């Protein structure tokens, strides 16, 4: 029997027929009469045919494809799942576990990406980040992007570069598809929807999970049983922070698109996601993002922790510049939560957190196709390869940022042209570190030296080549500000260490990078022939390639706790969220070779004035400008919380 006929018969049995599907006028797109045939039209998305109940998009409606590897289009759930499982099975850097089951009984898997040990180079528990995908069923951009992120992390874990840095220093948790029941419903009805044409709700446009509000069990995935087509809980309204807050954009109505569920964390999917934090563990969590579409924006919340909020603003400023189509950042005030997962993780764990609304901004018209209502949830096949690459790269940059500020790990100074090493010192590891000085023979007047500076983090990006370039969307000052300062009073001298470059080849101190490509820089400095013997100091100031200023004091290891950076000092040795100039290496200048080591210690200029360390600006400075403007803006935008 024709399914439309079945639907019509079902509706006839369900109740009286009214003329139109009527909004409740409650500020949300909910209807008064969801069992009415007028609210249960059946529509088919097509490329060009808009006759009858067809809705022409202008491009072929994407069909989920059985392919484990990425294609010009969207993969079906079975293939995505098998892909995750294969990577887990064959990659040493990926493990997985079941967090729970969906309402319909499907296993919800989360994957951990990182080295087997859970300690960073300083012996502390690694920081953790958590990405959630597929909470809203129809937002296919999300599982694709989460899977691309997993694939990228696996592929780069031994790249001797930033992928390996993340692998060795961060605990990355990715839950690629949370609302599996809903997602498979949308895929089973890839071009079919029900509802009204401008507000389709079931089939390809299902958003919620499958909860039947009366029975509590899972509804079916069919469109021809309209009695349940509006059922389900919005999993992004079901968390305990701001649950049923009475604010707009979450609803008590079980048929609403944004129905929050019967109680906080009532849904097994919500419980599973929240339990993922323990894998961080929760005390190590540093960042959370929930991948959605569409709008091209980061939708965040503020907590009552201004330091956490400031870090979130800066992190967002760096990340939103990565995609080629600019993203926006908007923030809700503390107290305006509505049960979203970003609020739950952000406030519960005091970490930067937001909902990432993947493109498009408006809909299919962004790509030259028909401006059809809800077409923003149907990204054309040809767009997803670029989009998932960009979102994965955006998240990777965020991970790199939240892995922590860099510090100068070692400095080696040798006479240019292969001459002897005159100074070499290295910081040890641990929460509190000590400097080990292997050589301190003095930089002799009239000679030229190569100054090699090693960091604990790859500091610059380089797309498969030997030259450091800007990470997409970033604009940091490429060379660090490295100076040799010596003398006092009127004879105080500050020499720029110049003609330097970031090192792309291996080789270690004096030759190449230490552990990761571009984790070391080398330049030259010439000591004037008139220089007198004096204590000296090397000052170093720079940002990493995401614009995060380096730690100003390597004696204490930087970390994250209490919703802010710890052990992250500025120019004056005090805790900051902005970092500063390192002045921890103290060679000396000698008027002649073999001159005795002078007594005393040189304090660098950065520690003597409030002007800061000079060249450390770059992206960091840009971040500061952003912040000044963004905070008042965020305040003015915060009144509304989005239906994300």
């Amino acid at each position, binding site marked *: 029997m024709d399914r439309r006929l079945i639907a019509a018969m079902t509706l006839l049995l369900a109740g009286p027929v009214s003329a139109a599907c009527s909004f409740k006028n409650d500020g949300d797109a909910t209807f008064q009469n969801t069992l009415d045939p007028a609210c249960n039209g059946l529509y088919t998305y097509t490329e060009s045919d808009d006759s009858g109940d067809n809705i022409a998009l202008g491009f072929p409606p994407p069909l989920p494809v059985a392919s484990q590897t990425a294609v010009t289009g969207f993969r079906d759930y079975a293939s995505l799942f098998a892909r995750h499982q294969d990577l887990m099975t064959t990659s040493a850097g990926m493990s997985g576990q079941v967090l729970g089951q969906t309402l319909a009984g499907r296993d919800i898997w989360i994957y951990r990406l990182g080295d087997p040990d859970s300690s960073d180079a300083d012996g502390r528990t690694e920081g953790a980040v958590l990405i959630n995908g597929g909470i809203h069923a129809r937002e296919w951009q999300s599982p694709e992007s989460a899977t691309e992120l997993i694939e990228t992390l696996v592929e780069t874990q031994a790249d001797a570069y930033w992928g390996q840095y993340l692998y060795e220093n961060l605990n990355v948790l990715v839950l690629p598809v949370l609302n599996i029941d809903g997602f498979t419903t949308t895929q089973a009805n890839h071009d079919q929807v029900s509802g009204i044409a401008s507000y389709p709700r079931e089939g390809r446009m299902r958003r919620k999970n499958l909860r039947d509000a009366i029975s509590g069990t899972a509804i079916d995935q069919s469109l021809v049983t309209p009695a349940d087509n509006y059922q389900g809980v919005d999993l992004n309204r079901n968390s305990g922070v701001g649950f049923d807050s009475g604010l707009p954009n979450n609803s008590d109505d079980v048929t609403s698109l944004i129905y929050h569920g019967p109680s906080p964390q009532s849904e097994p999917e919500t419980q599973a996601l929240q339990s993922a934090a323990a894998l961080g563990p929760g005390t190590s969590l540093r960042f959370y993002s929930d991948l959605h579409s569409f709008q091209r924006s980061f939708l965040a919340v503020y907590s009552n922790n201004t330091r956490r909020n400031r870090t979130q603003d800066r992190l967002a400023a760096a990340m939103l510049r990565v995609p080629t189509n600019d993203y926006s950042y908007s923030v809700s005030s503390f107290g305006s939560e509505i049960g979203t997962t970003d609020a739950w993780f952000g406030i519960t764990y005091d970490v930067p957190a937001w909902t990432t609304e993947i493109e498009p901004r408006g809909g299919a018209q962004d790509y030259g*196709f028909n401006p059809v209502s809800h077409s923003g949830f149907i990204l054309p096949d040809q767009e997803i390869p670029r989009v998932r690459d960009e979102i994965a790269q955006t998240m990777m940059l965020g991970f790199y940022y939240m892995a922590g500020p860099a510090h100068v790990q070692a400095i080696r100074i040798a006479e240019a042209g292969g001459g002897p090493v005159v100074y070499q010192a290295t910081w040890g590891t641990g929460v509190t570190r000590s400097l080990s000085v292997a050589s301190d023979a003095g930089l002799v007047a009239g000679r030229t030296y190569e100054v090699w500076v090693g960091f604990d983090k790859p500091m610059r990006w380089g797309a498969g080549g030997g030259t450091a370039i800007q990470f997409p969307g970033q604009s940091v000052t490429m060379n660090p500000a490295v100076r040799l300062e010596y003398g006092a009073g009127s004879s105080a001298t500050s020499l720029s260490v110049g003609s330097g470059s970031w090192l792309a080849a291996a080789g270690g101190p004096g030759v190449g990078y230490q552990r990761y490509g571009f984790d070391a820089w080398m330049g030259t400095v010439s000591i004037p022939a008139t220089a007198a013997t004096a204590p000296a100091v090397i000052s170093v100031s720079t940002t990493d390639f995401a614009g995060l200023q380096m730690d100003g004091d390597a004696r204490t290891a930087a970390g994250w706790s209490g919703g802010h950076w710890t052990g992250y000092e500025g120019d004056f040795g005090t805790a900051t969220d902005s970092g500063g100039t390192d002045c921890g290496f103290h060679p000396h200048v000698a008027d002649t070779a073999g001159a005795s080591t002078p007594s005393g210690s040189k304090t660098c200029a950065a520690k003597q004035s409030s002007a800061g360390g000079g060249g450390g600006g770059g992206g960091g400075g840009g971040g500061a400008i952003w912040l000044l403007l963004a905070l008042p803006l965020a305040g003015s935008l915060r009144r509304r919380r989005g239906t994300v």
Partner: protein
Amino acid sequence: MTRTRGLLTLLCLLATLPSLAAGVEDRSTLDARWRSGAWAARAADLRAQAQAEPARFREAIRRELAAPAPDTAMQERLLQEAMLSMLPIARDPAGRDLLHTVGLRTPRAMTLQDEGGRQLPIPYADPGAAARAVLDTWDRFDSRDRSLAAMIHGGDALAPLEDASVRRELSVRGIELAFGSAPVPQLLTQRERVRGALTLRPRELTGIAATLALRSGDTVLAREVIERGAGRARLDLVLAARSAFAADDATALLIAATAAQDVASAAVLQLGNAMSASPSAREHLLSLLGDAALGGSAAQALAADTDASTLSALSAILARGVDDLSTRRAILTLRLNGGSAASALLTRYLDDPRAPAALRQEVATWIGA
């Protein structure tokens, strides 16, 4: 540059504030007004008029353009729907002229997107975008019709590709539509022309050649598409191969496609669907289990149809007692299958002293044992 982009973003956000302050209406509020007033009825009238009386329709639209209504949002939506109603009508110069005119229009009515976040206003309706999209569709249809006409008369069905006045991707799609609807005998007259063009312009011709191959059952051409083609259409060919070609031909084609990196996984999974009709497909999948790139796909394919011979082969792999890709993919096959026989084999593996202890430990974790 970074600062510039950041500031631009901020300025864009700031630009939205006045509209927020002015009380931009929710989409659902606007939609309710649309449907409760006379606007929806007017749109329906215009839609009917667009087909029956296109001249009067165009006149009505030009009147709307010349006289802004007090309710801008409703008028914008009316214009958008009117433009979309031009999709199926006769494509004449007067209609094109109207579409070009409206296509220059920028959005004039904003709303707060209530299904994707209310933070940022987006256009409530965009008649300009609708007009431009309809023009593109007309261009596609024109290319389709010219290609079809050429086929009927024995001419060059690819000629629309040379029309510089039409965007190339629209011409390509139009010809693909033509090849999808023309009678097969007419398609065959184009075969050699398409083959030659495929070599010279693979990105543009892949979809056309794939359609021809699929509709005419031409496995030789299909093989050339796999070997020389590019882009999404090659994937579509792989997905359709089993329904278009005889079982052995499809299997041979899919095996060949496993050498093409961008469609290899899809080809392997299609081979899985071909196993019941083609024993060679199963053998090939088993041989792929140890392949770093394709073993996972082979495991997924085998898991969907794990018969006794497959179980026997997997058991033999496990019995080797080594921890390599083949073993891990054999285990993955059994896990993805999840049937009683597969589960029993896995359980036995946990107790098999020949199995590497570390791998047994991993398996125990995976299956929750």
